[in-house]
């Protein structure tokens, strides 16, 4: 078509000769509606064509844009019958043509803003027109003449949108309360519940697949045998009765599971400066140091009856404190070890101080912890002070907000943290009226426990950078959880998930998402991640996951189970040396499927994450996923602190305050 490139983008031409025009035919502040106004009101291309070339010609020659950009008169270019003719609109224009222009701009992906269709050509419409013209390679003059109209019209030539189709499966029927289950049953949620209970009851571990297979039969038999029943391998009422008696169900964020006897371990594993696991969570202190760690040390020394020359509890590591520390070390034979420096309270001395009976009212924890998420090692520092005050237990983290510390979001984040975290108290049912709130406090004064950069944009945040446009209410509360040593609860392999949350793997989706048998999918995955072309491993594995629509839950676990059955013990795991930053792949027959897949894919890629994702688990708590992708239109919903997240402080409280204290929701 003349005037357009083969890509449909108008090309520039020499300016044509300009012919006289009648003023006032343009709808807008400059004049009244003319013929074109009528034509516009008629509103279709056929009418505009019937109005004839004369009007069109006049109208087009009136257009500055056409004149400047060299658009020849329509009469000279044999207009197509379907050609629509619009009045030129510009800043200040009003009316239906502007409405049409705004409507069409709103259909352009090139324009960022969704305009109000109000028929008023104001500054926002002007900006949108300029944006549109820039994107289309037109002269950017903000005037909507024939060329710009042509481009806008082209956008609306696409077929009418179809109503997005229905689809989707039916909701699963509510599970029978306690049905008689046997091999071959499922996939169903109730089989998943049975598997959770078998695991929690200590029977041989079975994957929570929702499918009653031979392993589940064997586990039921083992349970029945251990409890003096006939090992039928089927869940008769008595088997259910005992399983229910031995296990406790728990519901969190709408997912029901079964508590493990081992309980939850939501805190990250403390590591020392070499990266090795340690039990010590205290800072090393020595003469000249001050602060709560010193105060705690002095209180613990004073609790030791062997220390006769008791230091003053003043938070200052003075000469008296040093003498008391030396005495304590000698009394406990610590100096004989040859590894402990006299008068300095390091991990070895703290280990003994922590064992001295007697309450303290202050504590200081400083440690680096690590976790493995999606097969990758993460970690960070945790530093906080707790104090047992007469009317509350205070946990204080002082954050040094940098870059934009005065931004209003900082105050909101601090409020978000206390809003979400301050919802528990300790109560002693034996002593009516004993009610001590657990209060988390964010301080902003030195000495600081953590540094957070305040970045004024809408990018995503992480533990070290908080972005002001990141609107998740769970952002600051989640990162605060890390500052007090809690691990993430998203995309974790089963073993880690169960250990962290203290309940069995959730059932998720148990029904098949693919007609392909799990064993075949497992083989496809294995083939993908073991092929010679390493660059193809992650993309091909991701494609397998996509093709079979694998999502976390029972069906994905059926695939994982098949993968393990076929390919264990040839499993790998990626290892990171935090000191050297060196990554290496090591054999680990006990690695989970997600870890094996990740280790076999080079680098760290989204495809690798996609491939491993279905085999992991997440919670919808403050430490889990921030927002659910299937959240049907709701604004950011609450991802609460779970009792396990504050259990450490309950333990501290119980140790240091007499009574039969329990955790209660509410302050």
């Amino acid at each position, binding site marked *: 078509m003349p005037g357009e490139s083969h890509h449909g983008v108008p090309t520039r031409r020499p300016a044509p000769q300009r012919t006289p025009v009648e003023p006032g035919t343009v709808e807008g502040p400059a004049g009244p509606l003319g013929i074109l106004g009528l034509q516009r009101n008629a509103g279709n291309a056929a009418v505009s064509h019937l109005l004839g070339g004369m009007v069109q010609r006049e109208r087009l020659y009136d257009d500055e844009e056409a004149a400047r950009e060299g658009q020849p008169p329509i009469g000279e270019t044999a207009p197509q019958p379907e050609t629509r003719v619009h009045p030129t609109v510009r800043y200040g224009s009003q009316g239906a043509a502007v409405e049409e222009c705004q409507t069409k701009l*709103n*259909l*352009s*992906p*090139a324009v*960022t*803003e*969704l305009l*109000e269709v109000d028929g008023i050509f104001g*500054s*926002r419409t002007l900006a949108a027109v300029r944006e549109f013209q820039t*994107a289309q390679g037109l002269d950017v003059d903000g005037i909507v003449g024939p060329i710009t109209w042509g481009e806008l019209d082209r956008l*609306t*030539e*696409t*077929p009418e*949108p*179809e109503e*997005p189709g229905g*689809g*989707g499966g039916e909701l699963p029927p509510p599970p029978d309360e306690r049905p008689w289950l046997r091999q071959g049953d499922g996939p169903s949620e109730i089989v998943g519940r049975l598997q959770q209970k078998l695991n929690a009851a200590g029977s041989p571990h079975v994957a929570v697949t929702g499918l009653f297979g031979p392993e589940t039969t064997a586990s039921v038999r083992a349970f029945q045998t251990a409890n003096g029943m006939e090992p039928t391998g089927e869940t008769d009422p008595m088997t259910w009765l005992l399983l229910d008696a031995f296990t406790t169900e728990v519901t969190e964020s709408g997912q029901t599971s079964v508590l493990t006897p081992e309980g939850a371990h939501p805190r990250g594993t403390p590591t020392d400066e070499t990266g090795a696991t340690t039990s010590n969570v205290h800072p090393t202190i020595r003469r000249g140091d001050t602060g709560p760690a010193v105060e705690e040390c002095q209180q613990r020394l004073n609790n030791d009856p062997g220390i006769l020359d008791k230091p003053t509890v003043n938070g200052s590591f003075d000469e008296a404190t040093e003498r008391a520390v030396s005495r304590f070390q000698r009394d406990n034979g610590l100096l004989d070890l040859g590894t402990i420096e006299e008068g300095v309270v390091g991990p070895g001395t703290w280990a003994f101080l922590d064992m001295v009976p007697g309450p303290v009212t202050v504590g200081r924890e400083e440690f680096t912890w*690590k976790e493995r998420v999606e097969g*990758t090692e*993460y*970690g*960070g520092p945790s530093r906080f002070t707790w104090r047992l005050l007469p009317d509350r237990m205070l946990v204080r983290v002082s954050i040094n907000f940098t870059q934009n510390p005065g*931004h*209003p*979001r900082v105050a909101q984040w601090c409020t978000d943290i206390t809003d979400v975290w301050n919802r528990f108290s300790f109560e002693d049912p034996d002593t009516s009226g004993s009610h001590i709130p657990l209060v988390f406090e964010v301080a902003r004064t030195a000495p600081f426990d953590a540094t957070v950069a305040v970045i004024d944009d*809408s990018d*995503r945040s*992480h*533990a070290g950078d908080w972005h002001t*446009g990141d*609107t998740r209410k769970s952002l600051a509360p*989640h*990162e605060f959880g890390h500052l007090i040593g809690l691990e*993430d609860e*998203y995309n974790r392999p089963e073993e880690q998930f169960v250990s962290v949350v203290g309940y069995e793997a959730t059932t998720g989706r148990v029904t098949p998402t693919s007609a392909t048998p799990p064993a075949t999918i497992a083989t496809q995955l294995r083939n993908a991640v073991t092929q010679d072309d390493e660059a193809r491993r992650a993309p091909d594995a991701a*494609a397998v996951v*996509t*093709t079979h629509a694998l999502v976390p839950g029972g069906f994905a676990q059926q695939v994982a189970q098949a993968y393990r059955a076929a390919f264990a013990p040839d499993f790998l795991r990626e290892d990171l040396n*935090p000191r050297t*930053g060196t990554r290496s792949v090591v054999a680990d027959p006990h690695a989970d499927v997600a870890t094996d897949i990740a280790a076999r894919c080079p*680098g*760290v*890629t*989204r495809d*690798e*994450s*996609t491939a491993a994702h279905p085999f992991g688990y997440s919670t919808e708590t403050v430490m889990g996923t*921030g*927002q*659910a*992708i*299937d959240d*049907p*239109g*709701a*604004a950011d919903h609450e991802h609460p602190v779970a009792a396990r997240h504050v259990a450490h402080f309950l333990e501290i409280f119980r140790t240091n305050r007499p009574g039969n204290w329990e955790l209660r929701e509410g302050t």
Partner: protein
Amino acid sequence: MTLVTYHRSGGFPPPDDERLTVDDDGTYTLVRTNGAPRVGQFAGRIAATERDALRDLAEAAAAAGGHTGLGVPDAAWEDVLVGSTRATFAGPPPEGPWGALVTALRRLLNDLAGPGGTGLTLKVGRTSARLLVSGDAPQEVDLGHLGGEAVTFTAAGALGDRAGLQTSVVRGQEQWTELTPGQPVDFAYAAPLAVEPGGRLQVEVRLPGRRDGAAVLYRLLAVWTATPE
């Protein structure tokens, strides 16, 4: 010849999957999935001055040798490859030349995701928002698992009101749909949102999609700014 390859992936859900490759002649290919008003595939050529500056940064980084380290919780992994020298980290960029290079690449990632790509665009207005296909190719998305919210900010930057997004699509079950160019998905805000002069309204839309047969999770973010008084 590739000048630099940058890949940002994973992180706090929804995960990143951003890839930028810049060749010696300044031509680039970019894939964005997360945090931009336009997501999808982009291609073009950066200005010669910008390319030269990037080359200087890349050469300095490569001369410094490879880098890797323990990740900061919730951070996406960033993987930068210059020749055969690689830096991989999650969190603040490393000190020195790699940090300078990554900062430049992060900026490019935002700058280059402009109009002209193939994918999805989120447009935001005062009272509603709209999702559109960019480019000529249809985009496969699961509208049944579409989520998001609208949030206001005061002129000073404080967070204001929040509202969910309402559409005519029934959500909660898979509804894979091939969105075609010109076929908008419109959203109303579930509650009236007042934006003060100079304030802004930010809309985030999250939805699963498929690109080249692979699963992808899109997170589009766009902002409407109220005219200052």
